[in-house]
């Protein structure tokens, strides 16, 4: 009997143990290790014990590295442009299509496809479409009598090209989230506005958007975090070129580790990227907290009024 009780007391730990072990050894440990490695001068042929400890020199080097600063700004510019465009398009489409239409289920299913397919394949499809001679864009332009566009060989155009591909892939994400938020809005508020004679625009600007704001801000932050992680599509499309015009930070980390074999420097860059994303995530949590606190306060106030 006592054995059985003991077994019962141990059960939760037995259920949790495998997950705990894997998460500690394959996730927490590597991330801690990365922080340590960012202080080392380390090449892939060396064991970590043989690598020389050089303090903050990797970070100092990065600070003075023209190319790193360039790719840092490319990342910021890419994330800002892409997320802004996608938010406007996604929310705009959701506002337009928030009504009883027949094809919506099909549209929603088809809209997830770009997100489900491997980013490598997405890059491949767009690389084919951007091809200077056989790509569908230049073919169409030429058949209409225009000059072809140097999509992937000009630094401005290649930036536009990766933005278009990303907007194609991720606008549906915003659309689906915004639509879900919109359909869970309280009907009463909208009906009241209708009785008061609010126009369609007034309803959108004064009721729908403010009520959706909490969800929209979380969506924006999720998408922003993801925009800093984009790598494969750009790797296949431009490999960061021409020059450094499309080399975002994640791609630079990959190339520093793979081509230049500077693991310490790559770790330092990873660390900076991680801190940037951490700040965004903490911002999101803080926002959620504030929002929940405010809702709770309002509810408390409403209950007091009832008494």
């Amino acid at each position, binding site marked *: 009997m006592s054995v059985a009780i003991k077994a019962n007391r141990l059960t939760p730990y037995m259920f949790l143990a495998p997950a705990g072990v894997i998460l500690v050894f394959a996730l927490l440990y590597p991330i801690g290790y990365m922080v340590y490695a960012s202080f080392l001068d380390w090449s892939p042929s060396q064991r970590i014990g043989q690598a020389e400890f050089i303090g903050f020199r990797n970070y100092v080097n990065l600070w003075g590295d023209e190319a790193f600063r360039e790719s840092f700004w490319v990342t910021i510019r890419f994330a800002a442009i892409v997320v802004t465009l996608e938010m406007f398009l996604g929310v705009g489409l959701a506002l337009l299509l928030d009504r009883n239409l027949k094809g919506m289920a099909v549209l929603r299913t088809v809209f997830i496809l770009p997100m*489900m*397919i491997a980013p490598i394949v997405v890059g491949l499809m767009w690389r084919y479409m951007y091809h200077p001679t056989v790509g569908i864009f230049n073919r169409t332009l030429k058949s209409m009598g225009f000059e072809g566009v140097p999509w992937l060989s000009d630094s401005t155009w290649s930036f536009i090209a990766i933005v278009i591909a990303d907007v194609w892939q991720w606008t549906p994400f915003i659309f689906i989230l915004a639509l879900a938020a919109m359909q869970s809005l309280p009907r009463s508020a909208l009906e009241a506005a209708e009785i008061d004679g609010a126009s369609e625009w007034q309803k959108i600007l004064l009721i729908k958007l403010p009520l959706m704001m909490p969800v929209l801000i979380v969506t924006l932050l999720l998408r922003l975090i993801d925009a800093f992680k984009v790598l494969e599509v750009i790797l296949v499309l431009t490999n960061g070129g021409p020059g450094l015009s499309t080399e975002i930070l994640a791609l630079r980390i990959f190339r520093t580790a793979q081509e230049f074999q500077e693991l310490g420097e790559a770790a330092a860059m990873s660390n900076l990227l991680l801190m940037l994303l951490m700040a965004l*995530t903490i911002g999101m949590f803080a926002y959620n907290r504030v929002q929940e606190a405010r809702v709770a306060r309002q509810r408390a106030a409403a209950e007091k009024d009832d008494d």
Partner: protein
Amino acid sequence: MSAQTEKQNPAFYALIAALVVMSVGPIALMLATSFKTNVDVYDASVSAFFFSPTIKNYETVLCNFLWYEPAHVDYCDPTFGRALVNSLIVGLISTGLTLTIGCMAAYALVRFKFMGRGAVSMTTLLMRMVPPAVLLVPVFGIWTFQYGLDQTYAGIILIYTAMNLPFVIWILQSFIVQVPIQLEEAARMDGANPFQVFFLVVLPIIQPGLAAAAIFTFRIAWNEFLLANALSGRSTRTVPVTIVNSITEYDINWGVIMATGMLLAIPPILFTFVASKQIITGMTAGAVKG
């Protein structure tokens, strides 16, 4: 819902149709190109969608699985066929492992009241934040020099399992919470031990949750490139790695590479059509509370 369907402006239907064409277009173009000969691809007079289709590209890609020898293949390159098998092995085993370990942990967290659900959803969100590029250096270093798992299936499977676990635990929790505790108590009364309760009572009930979690984990393992590229050896390469390797060549054979891409894209496309509802639920769960 259908009772309320009013007559809507046809412009909306046109808009929906345009959006569908825009999101499917590139995929359709890839499908069409995968049936094109390389000569046709480079011939400007051949239309993008209307041409005489051929399955030669697929024969080239899958040549080591065919029971006959295609006449046009001089030398059968087994790289892709092998990679396809590797991708399947890695995807299936890591999905199986993640689900087994994940639902045990989720069950313990819900039923034995460990840390709150808050802690798990926090970890999930934090994990969502970590880009694979950040894991690249430490995982490469540790797997190679400390665990000795480089160039093996085990190494790739281990990192995919770890990457997917937080999300799987988080999504399964929300399903396990809904299992009525009376069912489990009844099984206990009948003398079942905790493991029997878990495997014979709880698991069958949460099947829909397991399916959703399986799709998410399999898709990530199937599509991932960066870590697979760093960890796999010549014989354990997965499909995304072979695709990237073959586009660095100057003379790209578009037909063949599009056939490869299509084969990689087929499983996720199938999942989308079979389980779009669960996928949307999983996607929106983080942002829209409901």
